[in-house]
Every structure is written in C-alpha cells, then in structure tokens.
C-alpha cells in the first residue's frame, strides 16, 4: 500500500499513531502528581520533538545514506527560519507561503554550498561545511544587520513589527501565525480524571508535515536513487568504474537534506515568529549530528527517536534543581543524601551539556548504531535468539 513494503507500512503506522496520539502518550502522569514534571505532553515541547525530528530525518538522508558528515546543517535551518519570518513581515501571518519559501530558499542555499563543498570528501567536506555554516552565522549575526541593509536584525533576532507591510493581513485574521485563520496557538484542553491533555493546532500542523516527510524519506530510502546514495557510501571508486558519476547523486542528497532543514526552520518560525542567528551556530549543527547518531544513522526511525530523546532529556534535565534532587534522595540518611545530591548536581540543571557530551561519547564508542541498534540487541537478548547474519557482520565496536 502507498508503494510501501509490509514492514515499512508497519513502521509508518507506528509513526502515524505515535505522532497523532502524542498529546496522550506523552502525558502519562496525572497533572497533580509528583511525576507530572516528567510529562512531555505540552505543545511547545511536542512541537520541538516533531520539528527536530524532521531536521534529523533530513540530515539522515545525507549522512546515513551517503556517509558525508556535514557539520553545517544548522545554516539551512537558520536560513529557513529567516525566510519564513520575512514572509510574515511582507505577506502576513499565514504560515503556508512562509514554509514554502523557507524550503525553496534553503534548497537554493544548500545547492550553492553543496556544489562547492562536495568537490571534496571525508574530513575536508566536514570542515568546508563547518566553515560555510560559521560564515553564514557571522553574516547573519553582524554583517547582514547593518542599518542600510537589514536582512537578519542581528543579535535581537528577526521578528515582525507593527509597521511591517503584511499585504495580505486583514483585521479578521489573528495577529499571530495561523493557517487560513486558525491560529497555531489554538489548543483544545481535555480533562479526563486527573489528566489534562492539550491538543494544539500548531503541533498537529507539524505532525502532519513530519508524517509526510517521513513517508518521503521511506520512499527515498527504498528507491533506486537511495540505492545509488548507498553505493556512494560503500565505495565511490567502484561506482565510478561502473560508469556512474556520484557527484549529481550526492548533490541531490545534500539539497534534499538542506530542504528538510529549511522546512524545519520554517516550522520553528511558524510556531514562534522569531528567528535568531544562534540557530545557525555550529553547536546547533553538532546537535543534529548527535540526534541522528544517537537514534541510529542510516535507519529510518532512528533520527526521529534521537531527536525526541535529546529534546526530552534536555527539557527534563534542565528542570531538575537541587531541591528536586533532595526530594529524590530524601529516603537516605542526611550525609549520604547530600553526597548523592552533590554527585548528581553537575549533570543536571545547567550541566545538561555535560551529560549530553558524555552520552555522545558513550554512544559513539559503544553503540555506533544508536538507539535502534541498542533496541535490536536488547530484543535479541530477551528472545534469546541470535541471528546468524548479524554475527557475520563486521563488528564496529572497539575491543573493550
């Protein structure tokens, strides 16, 4: 069905169900309970899950299939965000033109950068994309925000002001991002027992986009084109000998993943009409690499899982402070309680990045296949079954 094989269809259904029922699934604890802080079912966070999921799916098309590690993908996200806010400023708050333009602009921008960077491969490619992204960041942060030609509004971030033209804006329409009159912020609250579910329109817009993006990526993975991209990864030289030129394929993959990034950037702006240069910084590029690796590069569902995992723990870990820690360890004797709090303290709250860095190292070292591989290993362990084929595979983990 829909040109999908049976297992892909099952995967697609799982993603469909997960995204559509996310407001319920991510809200397992009653609002009043102490565990409510672990709930993730509120619109802002769910939107970020989905948007960064799209970003990671796009990145995976480049990295997972061709093996080209781009360290500058945040540049396309940033460009997309700026394009979308500019549409808000010029045309009005309807998100459709903004998102369409952000995809187009990011596509053109990535075609330009890809054309130059893809002349080199391996580490040169990573450094070139990093250099381009840092250059775009510098341009957006200072150069393009001079009074004569203010494209990005520098440090403040690009936002909509009341004296902007907004040609298609009328009084009937809400004064914030909307889709044909329905504002992104519209939320339907549903109270069942102690639970409080929030169904946000903006989230569902993102979710539909994610489902479409995911479907396209499945089709791409299974297409002859996807096969070509895998050939680029496994052996470019051999591919050239068979008379195929890898360049157009890699460039196409680069542009497609750039467009995904632009789409994510556009959605970010659509949810919150403010685009800042820090979205293009190289740490942001590192983050999407991390999501993809953590979830499992080259797998279909991995990047989405990775994005959700990182955004969820970023949110939860940042919220935990010493007070929360004390309440957790209160069952211990006082001295031990303080010791435990002191031990855990550096890793939570503001120390989230430390945890992230450690996690990154651990995953790359011990679980190069990411969460998906971890799940498979766990599954095999539980069922007690070892597939003969997986044992024959070259084992990439170090001998430790």
């Amino acid at each position, binding site marked *: 069905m829909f040109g999908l094989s049976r297992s892909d269809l099952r995967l697609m259904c799982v993603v469909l169900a997960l995204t559509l029922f996310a407001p319920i699934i991510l809200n397992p604890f009653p609002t009043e309970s102490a565990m409510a802080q672990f709930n993730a079912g509120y619109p802002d966070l769910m939107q970020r899950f989905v948007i960064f999921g799209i970003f990671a799916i796009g990145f995976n098309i480049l*990295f997972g299939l061709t*093996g080209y*590690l781009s*360290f500058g993908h945040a540049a396309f996200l940033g460009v997309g965000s700026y394009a979308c806010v500019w549409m808000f400023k010029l045309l009005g708050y309807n998100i459709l033109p903004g998102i369409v333009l952000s995809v187009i602009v990011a596509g053109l921008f990535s075609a330009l950068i890809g054309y*130059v960077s893809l*002349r*080199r*491969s*391996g*580490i*040169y490619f*990573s*450094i*070139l994309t*990093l*250099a*381009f992204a*840092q*250059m775009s960041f*510098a*341009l957006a*942060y*200072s*150069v*393009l925000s*001079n009074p004569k030609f203010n494209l990005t509004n520098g440090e403040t971030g690009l936002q909509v002001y009341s004296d902007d033209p907004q040609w298609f804006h009328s009084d009937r329409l809400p004064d914030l991002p909307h889709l044909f009159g329905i504002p992104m912020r519209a939320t339907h609250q549903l109270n069942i027992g102690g639970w409080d579910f929030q169904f946000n329109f903006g989230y569902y817009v993102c979710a539909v986009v994610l489902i479409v993006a995911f479907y396209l990526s499945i089709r791409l993975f299974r297409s002859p084109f996807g096969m070509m991209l895998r050939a680029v990864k496994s052996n*470019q*030289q051999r591919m050239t000998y068979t008379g195929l030129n890898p360049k157009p394929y890699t460039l196409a993959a680069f542009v497609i993943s750039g467009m995904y990034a632009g789409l994510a950037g556009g959605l970010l702006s659509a949810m919150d009409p403010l685009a800042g240069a820090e979205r293009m910084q*190289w*740490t942001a590029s*590192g983050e999407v*690499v991390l999501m993809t*690796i953590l979830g499992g590069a080259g797998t279909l569902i991995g990047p989405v899982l990775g994005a959700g995992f990182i955004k969820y723990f970023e949110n939860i870990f940042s919220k935990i402070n010493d007070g929360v820690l004390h309440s957790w360890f209160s069952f211990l004797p006082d001295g031990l309680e303080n010791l435990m709090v002191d031990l855990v303290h*550096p890793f939570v709250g503001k*120390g989230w*990045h*430390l945890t*992230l*860095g*450690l*996690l*990154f*190292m651990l995953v*790359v*070292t011990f679980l*190069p296949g990411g969460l998906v591989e971890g799940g498979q290993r766990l599954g095999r362990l539980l069922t007690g079954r070892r597939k003969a084929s997986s044992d024959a595979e070259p084992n*990439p983990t*170090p*001998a*430790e």
Partner: protein
Amino acid sequence: MDAFILQILNGLDKGSAYALIALGLTLIFGTLGVVNFAHGALFMIGAFCAVTLNKLFSISFETVDPTKTDFLGNPLKVKTPYLESWFGPELGGAIIDWSVPLSLIIAIPVMIAIGLIMERGLIRHFYKRPHADQILVTFGLAIVLQEVIKYFFGANPIQTPAPDALKGVFDLGTWLGLSLPYPIWRVFYFLFAVVTIFAVFAFLQFTTFGMVVRAGMADRETVGLLGINIDKRFSIMFGLAAAVAGLAGVMYGPINPPNYHMGMDFLVLSFVVVVVGGMGSLPGAVLAGFLLGILESFASTTWATTTLPGINQIIIYLVAIIVLMTRPRGLMGRKGVMEE
C-alpha cells in the same frame, strides 16, 4: 607605512595562536591520522592552567591591622597571600606577578599527561573506525572538557594579568624611525610562538626520536616491520601536540581573558587554517596560521570595514573557500594525504 606594519604586527599574535593550534592538529593528524575536534579544548585547558596557578598563588589569609581603620571605623583587614608571608613580600609578590610565565612549567607535564590519557584512554580505540566516528567522539569529548571547566570556573572570562614588567607598550619602530607602539606581551607571545615552533621542528628534524616519527608518518607499516614500536612514539607525539596547544593557551590568557568556550572559538578557525595550509603539512599549518592571522587583522581596519561591512568576520572563511577551490590540496599539501 606605519599603519601597514602595525596591521601586520596586530595579526601576528592571533596568527601565532592559530599557527600553534594548527601545528598540533597537523601533528596529530599526520602521525595518528585522527581528526581531533578536542584540540581547541586542550588550548582552553592550557589557559586554565594559568588561571589555576594564579588562584593558587593568591590564596591569602586575613590579618587585622590595628593601626589603620576602614571608612566605617572598624580595624582594617589586610589580605596577605601565603606566598608573601613565606618568601617575604618581594619574592612572594614577584612569584604571583609572574604566575602566567611560571604556569608554563606546570602546564607542560599537565598537558602531556592529559594528551596521553586522551590518546591511550579514548582515541586509541578509534584508529580503525571511520573519520566520521573520530570527529564525533572528539567532538563529544570537547563538549565534556568545556563543561567541566565551566563547572569549576564559571562561565565568565577570568582575568589573568601579565607580569608588570611585560605589561606596558613598547615602541618597536624607534630604530627604524617609525612610530609603532605595540603591547610588550604580544611581542612576547609572538617570540614564544616562534621559539615553540622552531623547537618542535628541531625536535622532529634533529633527534633520533623525531626521525623515527617522521619515518612513521611517511610509512607506518615499514617502520613497524623494522621492529620499532611506532604506536608508542605516536602516543608521545599526541602528548607533545597537546602540550603545544596548552602552552599556546597559557600564554594567550593575558591577551584575552580565558573563558570556557575560547577553545571552540579557536578550533573552527584552526581547522580552516589546517585545510588552507594543506592537511598533513607542518610548515603549511604554520604559514597559513600567520597568513590568515595577518589577513584577519587587515580586514579589521576601518578602511576595510567601511568598504565592505563585516569583512573581518568572514575573510578567513572566504579565503579558505577560494584556496580549496583553486588549490584543493591547500598551500603546501602533499599528494596522497587524505584523498579517498
């Protein structure tokens, strides 16, 4: 003319830092074939060696001076560093004053140890893995090191003053009949960088150890077959590269107060420097470091920034792109290095 030479001089201190970091990166890359994203963090740790030593030296105890009172009429509390009470105010004061140059002595063993631990403990396991994995794991390590420093020292830049004797401004042009006022510490930094670079080259060129390492860089397998434990020597080179980056960081403190993300800021540019110089070429890295530092300084002049606003922010990247398009191997890159 004066202004022209002054711009070149201005570029030298940043150029020195680029050259030293890029030199270490190239050493690691040339010997072990690893792309070390944590190299900027090593530079930063070096700077924080100086900060730590400065803090340790300034640990003081309080005494009450009954003869003086503060503005509220209470007896004045005087802080005296332990060093001053032990060695007398003159020697003790001098030690505190010279804490940054003195940190060099501490930083060398510390940085070599950190480098060896990094190589033996982590990076060793990644030699046979793809470059992407090496980049990713060292990137993670860089984040961790950065956050650890942030945890202990806070997020704000910490002042690490140069010794009083090296603080002022020195007119370099007196014997040329020009007026070139220039901070002494920057001259000192440049000289230090030149000495370090020469020391590294001399070490590689004139010692047996260096000869073996160079042979290993050219053909690792054959050297191994000759019965030489090349891995051990390469690990030591990693330690050496870490020390070079660390020393560059120690001495950079007085120019720019160190903060936890200074390493990352330098790292991206140093990578660009390595690529422009030519991957795997040590002279190329040094040359490109100084060249790009000077270029950046010229792009920061008012003339340049008024004609092309923001050119100082992007000039290095632009040059890197142009170089890679026209000379893909970089300025002094050799054939066969990093070419799949």
